[in-house]
């Protein structure tokens, strides 16, 4: 019984060892395989305990080293290669195979040097491939629509206000669609939220309302079922919905039989008629409340269902259109200009100075991401250049050591072209092996990039980035390019060296010339690094400036949650008011909640509304932009809950109810702009086209960065919910401890008011604030990381050059020290040499950065492209790194033993 297991163990060992043997060339396995197994088994029998593991480890190393090594040994079946004495063969598979084998052997002979080269190339190629995959996914890949280049968006433009993408009013949209002849179809969408009930816990769904032709215009085919038929956007036929892929997958378990069934939306049954394909996500529906989050449900948009005609002053539509074949964007733009101009004549009250603006859909989707991506692409290309410089340098260092080999081969008849080809084969082989490792780097980096991507960029398609065929093609092309670039300089030097002079000189070449080239490499690296650092510095400074902006409200210990009261159950203003009152009471009564208040538009939520206003006693000059304010409807404790400070007058009180006189609170920007002499409190405002009487300003609050930390503050006007009920209630709860702990209580209290009322956008304010700067943080971090890697590579490169220069000059230094030069002088000289090249590189780099930095301007915030801090800091960093990198070789130069150095030189 004891015999069996040990035998089985031995057999397993033999099987494993046979696997290792596969590392050996076939001929060798055939000749010696059995004996090698026998040999190993005997060794194995001798080993006991811990020695077994050690034996396996050594056997694996042995097999790897000698198995792979044997593949490079000369093999008896092949002709003996003595290329150096052969007449130079024409290009052939045979000579190529020889070159590759020779190169591989050379690489294995200097493993640490080869590893340094491969690592550098892997970093450079990997980073570039990763960034290219993102660029490809966002900028180059076609949109997931039929014939996407014919798709355009049409916005309302207000050139006098500098706005070219204002949402469109329903009346304007209907007029455009009727009159325009440039398009095969025009469609509109808007976004809202609906409550899904009746299947598990109620949820709020991001919902797109679209005209019936929407999916036909885009050319989207459903995954299941159908999309909307003509006429389904008419009142009475509109209770149908199309599901997004992710909702269908997550909520309905990818059940295809969902088509034809009914779901409860806002308490009303809607028939599911179709499911959309997955690749649509992120491409349309961009104007949802949070950027990058797209609609989960698509429903028909009823534009002229009510008793009143569709409005012309309410702007909330995004309009898509498909160009007729042969019609250019320019001619469509010209036609829409005409139509827009006519409408502004026909409807002077609503449309004065308004027009229609046509922009290609791709442009609209891609433009926000383009500058950032191109800057990153440029930076990563610089990184690759630094890597190439380093590798060229390392190859030259090795080339110097191999000049004798080349000279001998040349002397015995190898053609110069043949030798050039040999060196190029080597650099190409290095580039491709490095590139293969680089693909691993890229694969890892892409995962990282996509994971860390802010929603705004993800909307542009970044999450589709992957190592697909075009990206692999790019990596291959990159390897070819890198192989030639890093190989050409050393190849040329080697070719020159092959003209036999090193033979005569016993292996030492014209040191001065070579040193010149290599010192120039330092200057190149320094210049490139400065460019990278300045770019990263500018972005980091901008990011710092943005973070330093006062937001105007508190984010710590704040929880947000949104409820939307559906019209089906809360049809009247009174019903909305009552629901809000009980929500107010219940949420404020939760233990640990200091204050709870709601607004219809929370800061940084991406949702907003704007109205034209008239100010008592303020005369607008004829050429000034129209007087407008962004409006919010808030509950009485909202300012308290958000921590928005009241500067003058008072906040809203519970007494500002439906029966009391109408009151408003405005922000400081509005007070400053329209009450120049002060005294806004007590002033009066009313809305354009409002039938209500004047509203009195009772308070002025501090400015809030509603659209983001880096955005301008515009005039804002707050109304009490009791006087202007809104069905959207985004609550902010100020809690005494961790706000997330309050989520369950909030859910329970909302359910107590209405069990079918779902909570949406449950987040902490800290999270909301972090998301609003995520895009900026992303690009600052990415550029910072690239600059860091670049600086490291440059430092390594400078070290390499200086170390080599010192080793080349050891005997010279020795002689000079024998003649009385002091060690300190040698240190100074080496440092001076490195730093003078660094200075040249610095000068070139700073000049280049000064010339190219304006390209970053659109991404900067309150930082000039020629920001002296970024420039000086970058120069400082480079100087310090260069100094440190040169210090080690310099110290070595100082410690040269003159006697030994001179003797070596003479030997």
């Amino acid at each position, binding site marked *: 019984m004891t015999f069996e297991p040990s035998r089985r163990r031995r057999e397993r060992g033999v099987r494993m060892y046979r696997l290792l043997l596969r590392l050996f060339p076939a001929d060798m396995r055939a000749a010696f395989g059995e004996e090698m197994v026998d040999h190993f088994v005997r060794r194995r029998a001798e080993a006991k305990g811990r020695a077994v593991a050690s034996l396996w480890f050594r056997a694996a190393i042995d097999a790897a080293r000698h198995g792979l090594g*044997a593949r490079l040994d000369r093999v008896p079946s092949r002709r003996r290669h003595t290329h150096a004495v052969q007449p130079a063969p024409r290009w052939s598979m045979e000579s190529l195979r020889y070159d590759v084998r020779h190169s591989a052997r050379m690489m294995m002979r200097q493993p640490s040097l080869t590893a340094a080269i491969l690592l550098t190339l892997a970093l450079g190629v990997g980073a570039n491939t990763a960034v290219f995959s993102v660029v490809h996914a966002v900028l180059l890949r076609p949109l997931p629509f039929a014939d996407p280049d014919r798709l355009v968006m049409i916005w309302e433009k207000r050139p006098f206000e500098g706005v070219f993408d204002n949402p469109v009013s329903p009346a304007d949209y209907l007029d455009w669609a009727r009159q325009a002849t440039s398009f095969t179809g025009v469609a509109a969408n808007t976004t809202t939220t609906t409550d899904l009930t009746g299947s598990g816990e109620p949820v709020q769904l991001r919902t797109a309302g679209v005209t019936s032709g929407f999916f036909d215009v885009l050319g989207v085919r459903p995954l299941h079922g159908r999309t909307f038929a003509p006429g389904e956007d008419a009142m009475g036929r509109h209770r149908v919905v199309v599901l997004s892929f992710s909702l269908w997958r997550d909520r309905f378990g990818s059940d295809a039989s969902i088509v034809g069934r009914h779901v409860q939306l806002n308490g009303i049954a809607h028939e599911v008629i179709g499911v959309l394909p997955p690749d649509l996500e992120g491409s349309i529906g961009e104007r949802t409340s949070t950027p990058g989050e797209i609609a989960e449900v698509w429903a028909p948009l009823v534009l002229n269902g009510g008793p009143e005609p569709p409005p012309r002053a309410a702007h909330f539509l995004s309009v898509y259109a498909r160009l007729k074949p042969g019609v250019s964007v320019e001619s469509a733009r010209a036609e829409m200009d005409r139509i827009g101009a006519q409408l502004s004549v026909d409807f002077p009250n609503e449309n004065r100075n308004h027009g229609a603006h046509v922009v290609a859909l791709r442009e609209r989707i891609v433009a926000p991401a383009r500058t950032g991506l191109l800057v990153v692409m440029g930076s990563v290309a610089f990184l690759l250049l630094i890597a190439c410089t380093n590798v060229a340098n390392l190859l030259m260092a090795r080339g110097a050591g191999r000049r004798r080999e080349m000279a001998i081969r040349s002397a015995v008849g190898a053609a110069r072209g043949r030798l050039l080809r040999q060196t190029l084969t080597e650099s190409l082989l290095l580039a491709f092996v490095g590139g293969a490792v680089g693909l691993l780097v890229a694969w890892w980096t892409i995962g990282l990039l996509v994971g860390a991507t802010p929603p705004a960029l993800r909307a542009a398609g970044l999450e589709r980035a992957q190592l697909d065929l075009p990206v692999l093609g790019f990596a291959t092309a990159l390897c070819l390019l890198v192989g030639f670039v890093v190989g050409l300089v050393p190849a040329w030097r080697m070719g020159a060296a092959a003209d036999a002079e090193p033979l005569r000189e016993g292996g030492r070449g014209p040191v001065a010339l070579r040193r010149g080239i290599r010192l120039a490499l330092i200057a190149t690296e320094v210049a490139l690094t400065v460019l990278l650092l300045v770019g990263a510095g500018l972005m980091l400074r901008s990011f710092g400036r943005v973070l330093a902006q006062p937001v105007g409200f508190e984010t710590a210990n704040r929880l947000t949650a949104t409820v939307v009261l559906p019209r089906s159950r809360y049809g009247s203003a009174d019903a909305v008011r009552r629901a809000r009152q009980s929500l107010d009471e219940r949420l404020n009564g939760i233990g640990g909640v200091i204050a709870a208040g709601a607004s219809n538009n929370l800061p940084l939520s991406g949702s907003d509304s704007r109205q034209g206003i008239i100010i008592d006693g303020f005369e607008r000059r004829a050429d000034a932009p129209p007087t407008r304010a962004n409006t919010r409807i808030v509950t009485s404790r909202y300012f308290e809950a958000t921590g928005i400070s009241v500067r003058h007058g008072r906040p809203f009180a519970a007494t500002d109810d439906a029966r009391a006189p109408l009151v408003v609170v405005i922000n400081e920007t509005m007070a400053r702009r329209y009450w120049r002499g002060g005294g806004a409190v007590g002033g009066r405002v009313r809305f354009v086209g409002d039938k209500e009487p004047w509203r009195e300003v009772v308070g002025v609050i501090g400015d809030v960065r509603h659209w983001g930390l880096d955005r301008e503050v515009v005039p804002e006007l707050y109304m009490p919910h009791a006087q202007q009920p809104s069905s959207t209630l985004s609550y902010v709860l100020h809690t005494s401890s961790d706000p997330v702990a309050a989520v369950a209580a909030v859910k329970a209290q909302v359910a107590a008011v209405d069990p079918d009322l779902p909570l949406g956008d449950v987040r902490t304010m800290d999270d909301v604030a972090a998301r609003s700067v995520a895009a900026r943080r992303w690009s600052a971090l990415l550029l910072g990381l690239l600059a860091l890697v670049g600086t490291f590579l440059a430092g390594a490169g400078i070290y390499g050059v200086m170390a080599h220069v010192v080793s080349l000059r050891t005997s010279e230094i020795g002689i000079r020290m024998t003649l009385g030069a002091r060690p300190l002088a040698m240190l100074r000289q080496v440092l001076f040499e490195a730093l003078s090249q660094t200075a040249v590189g610095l000068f070139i780099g700073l000049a280049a950065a000064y010339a190219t930095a304006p390209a970053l301007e659109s991404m900067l915030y309150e930082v000039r492209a020629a920001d002296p801090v970024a420039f000086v800091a970058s120069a400082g960093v480079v100087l310090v790194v260069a100094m440190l990198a040169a210090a080690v070789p310099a110290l070595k130069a100082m410690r040269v033993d003159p006697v030994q150095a001179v003797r070596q030189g003479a030997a």
Partner: protein
Amino acid sequence: MPLKPIVLEVLLALADEPRHGWDLVADMQRRLHGESILPGNFYRTLRRMLVDGLIQETVAPRDADSSDERRRYFQLTEAGRHAAAAEGRRLQSLVNDRRLRRLLRAR
């Protein structure tokens, strides 16, 4: 050019009679005081020596243990003998060098 130590070891082990793989290893191991030789290194060396013509394959001697037919026997070639002798002379001249002797005495 100096021979690799392991090559010289193989040549020495084959100096008197043809041997098979494991026999060779065992013989070498005795002289190397137990330093273990691993199969990859050993058979790669054999293969190279065959290619270089230092050793050649031979039939099993009549008195050999015939139980194992897998075994391949090797013997020295003329070139192998020359190489071993040349290496021996090189080592001898090294050992005879007066400076080396002084160094050896000094220890």
